């Protein structure tokens, strides 16, 4: 009998089977201990039920050997569970380098998905089978949570920073996507589907979908903002130094800061540097950049981040 089929939804991602293996282990260990403890209790209840009147009972209230055993064995077991779960958890947290990046934005009460090639969709996340997909999450209002039971993946979407989740779907099909963090009246209607398709079909879909209002890819949109929002004044895109660091090859680089610490440039650092430029100034530059809070919309920041990410050093 496979207990997982009774309790868990079908496993449709690479990580799911690993999660389920631990679920089985904990489940079976729990059943064994439950039978031991409750079975023991039931045995005592029947064996030592009061048959005649009151009487004195033996003074049996201590047994060092027994107490050591029932402390040590569960301790070892929970350590096994801890390390096992931590190992899988780390895999869940670190996306493969070649993962497809998709931006998911939660708002009351729907999900919007922006794909790197410019496509976007609402209420349906289209992903290719057999390719790792990294979802960059944020929210426009309150906290939401991105949850796909079949993939065993869940991550909160926050209004002030990015969070990540990744998965690799193993089979084509449609899977439920829930909002798992309570967000008000329409919380239970904040449903979407993940549609897993063959990679070729995914490519075809991307080509045919270009629904950005500006009719352009996110990173192209970012390239346009780079000029119109005057980033170009201080930041070059060809590696030449300006008033601020060049955007070329910036993403993923480790920068030395003025206070001597270092920072790896990621989405959150870029966002912070756009909204609060003085927080972490790169060594060798003056803290002169104005804040873009209130000037850039979230979508525009997303686009700029996408654009900066696209400027890779060859």
């Amino acid at each position, binding site marked *: 009998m496979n207990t997982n089929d*009774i*309790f*868990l*939804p079908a496993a449709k991602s690479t990580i799911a089977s690993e*999660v389920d293996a631990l*679920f089985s282990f*904990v489940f079976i260990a*729990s059943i064994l201990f*439950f039978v031991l*403890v*409750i079975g*023991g*209790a039931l045995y*005592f*209840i029947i064996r*030592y*039920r*009061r048959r*005649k*009147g*009151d*009487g*004195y*009972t033996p*003074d*049996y*209230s201590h047994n060092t050997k027994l*107490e050591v055993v029932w*402390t040590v064995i*569960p301790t070892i077991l*929970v*350590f096994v*569970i*801890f390390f*096992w*779960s*931590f190992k*899988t*958890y780390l895999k*869940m947290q670190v996306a493969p380098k070649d993962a497809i990046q998709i931006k998911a934005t939660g708002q009351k009460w729907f999900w919007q998905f922006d794909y790197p090639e410019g496509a976007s969709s609402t209420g349906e996340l289209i992903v290719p089978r057999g390719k790792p997909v990294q979802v960059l999450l944020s929210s426009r*209002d*309150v*906290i939401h949570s991105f*949850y796909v*039971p*079949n993939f*065993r*993946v*869940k991550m909160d979407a*926050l*209004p002030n920073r990015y*969070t990540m989740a990744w998965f690799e779907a193993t089979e084509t099909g449609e899977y*439920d996507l829930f909002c*798992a963090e*309570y967000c*008000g*009246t329409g*919380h*239970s*209607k904040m449903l979407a589907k993940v549609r897993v398709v063959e990679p070729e079909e995914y490519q075809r879909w991307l080509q045919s979908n270009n629904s950005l209002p500006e009719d352009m890819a996110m990173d192209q949109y970012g390239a346009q903002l780079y000029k119109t929002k005057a980033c170009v004044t201080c930041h070059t895109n060809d590696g030449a130094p300006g008033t601020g660091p060049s955007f070329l090859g910036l993403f993923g680089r480790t920068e030395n800061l003025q206070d001597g610490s270092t920072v790896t440039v990621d989405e959150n650092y870029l966002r912070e540097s756009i909204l609060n430029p003085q927080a972490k100034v790169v060594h060798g530059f003056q803290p002169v950049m104005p804040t873009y809070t209130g000037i850039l919309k979230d979508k525009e920041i997303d686009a700029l981040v996408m654009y900066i990410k696209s400027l890779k050093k060859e």
Partner: protein
Amino acid sequence: MTQAISDSVSYLDEPKGIKSWLFTLDHKRIGILYMWSIMVFFFIGGMMALIVRTELLAPEQILVSADAYNQLFTLHGAIMIFLFIIPGIPAILGNYVLPLMIGAKDVAFPRLNLASWYVYIIGSLFAIYSLFSGAVDTGWTFYTPYSTQTSTSVTAMTLGAFILGFSSIFTGINFIVTIHKLRAPGMTWFKMPLFVWASYATAVIQVLATPVLGITLLLLIFERVFGIGIFDPALGGDPVLYQHFFWFYSHPAVYIMILPGMGIISEVITVFSRKKIFGYTAIAYSSLGIALVSFLVWGHHMFTSGQSELAAMIFSFLTFLVGIPSGIKMFNWVATMYKGSISFESPMLYTLSFLFLFAIGGFTGIMLGALSLDVHLHDTYFVVAHFHYVMMGGTVMAFLAGVHYWWPKIWGRMYNEKLARISAALLFIGFNMTFFTQFILGTKGMPRRYYSYLDQYQPLHAFSSYGSFIIGIAFFIMGYYLIHAIFKGQRVGKNPWGALTLEWTTTSPPPPHNFEQTPVVTDGPYDYDRIMIVGDERVYKDGPEEGKEIAKEVDSESKK
């Protein structure tokens, strides 16, 4: 001597009049004031749960709208947590029996004790005001930025919870000082009943953790009223900071709820097994151990909140650590029954229910503590089922065991045992129907706090709702026979269960100052290996021959 005690007036009769109750300094009367007021909220919270479960019979609207549903589950949670389960055992049973158990005339600060009840009432009035001025729809956790943006009456409700915190702190301070200073001569720390140990550990958490909740809720109120930007990103705040603050209190609060329950279980299981508790020191110290580590596990509520992986790892590790002492207690209770002489009156039935349900609550807690499993299970019905197994299967079952155990002491009258057994059985069946089903809903991916749901979850939801109706019936039966007992129950003597702790050495109900003479403690609280109670008196195994004769007589009588 015996004559003198039975002639004395009971605390229930003297002094008379409503004023004598509202201004009483007697810990027993204050316990009863707490009981009536807390029971009112338990009833309201319970009815809300039944409406919620009825609505969930089917995905479409049955009784209430989505907004009303969101308010109902929020109020159910907030009322049950802040107005019922946190004050429940300490303020009702703790207040009543703790001084009796250590042979004291009262708690250390009787006026503070009465003040704590008035503070509770004031806090609850704010909660009621909130109910009638737009209610709250945030979930009982008041997560930001939703709670700073919603138009519902969050300020009144959180102000209520803030005020209730002081009531909790007052009770905690009172218990700590009482236990330190007012123990009867001869009652050393290790002669204290384990309920007293558990209450002590609870009081420490109440005093240390509650202020953090107070600060957090106050900041939330300031944010809503004055627009300071602590939590709302729109104002430059951080919503996850709120979650850290909130759980820094609310996780230790889980142990405020469960530790006194564990104390009751230790009392009842020994009395009804006529057996010395197994591992007294292990149980006593594990209560303190749990209390201390409980401050360091709050982040396990936030594994998917975007907190760092390192933090998640540490919190997961500490969570497993805090699970072990609870497991050891389970083993100790079961081992206590070994070679006992076990009888099955209703307090023991609730205790056995506790063992069964709390074990399941514990194992599912291990699952939730495991990082990779929690990612899937977090914020689903699995979590809902888990904390109901711990809070209701654990704390409430223990509370009911305590209520049934001490009811004859409190009122001097016994309830209908047959009805009590029926309602215990119904509660056990209804509870498992309702909440075991929710484990499966959760593992299958059903998120919590959903007004509507996908069709695939409907059969399980319906089954769960039917179970909740059985729970409702069980509580109505219980309410009937318990209240009936107060007026019409059969009178009982000092010690109807044959227990060895001090509260059973005085009359039922006790006189206003508890004991005619300050008791001098020579026996341990669980020395069933050498003492038994015959006709309210202690008969020692190695005592005079006369005692043995009485024991034999009782023996042969009960055989008939």
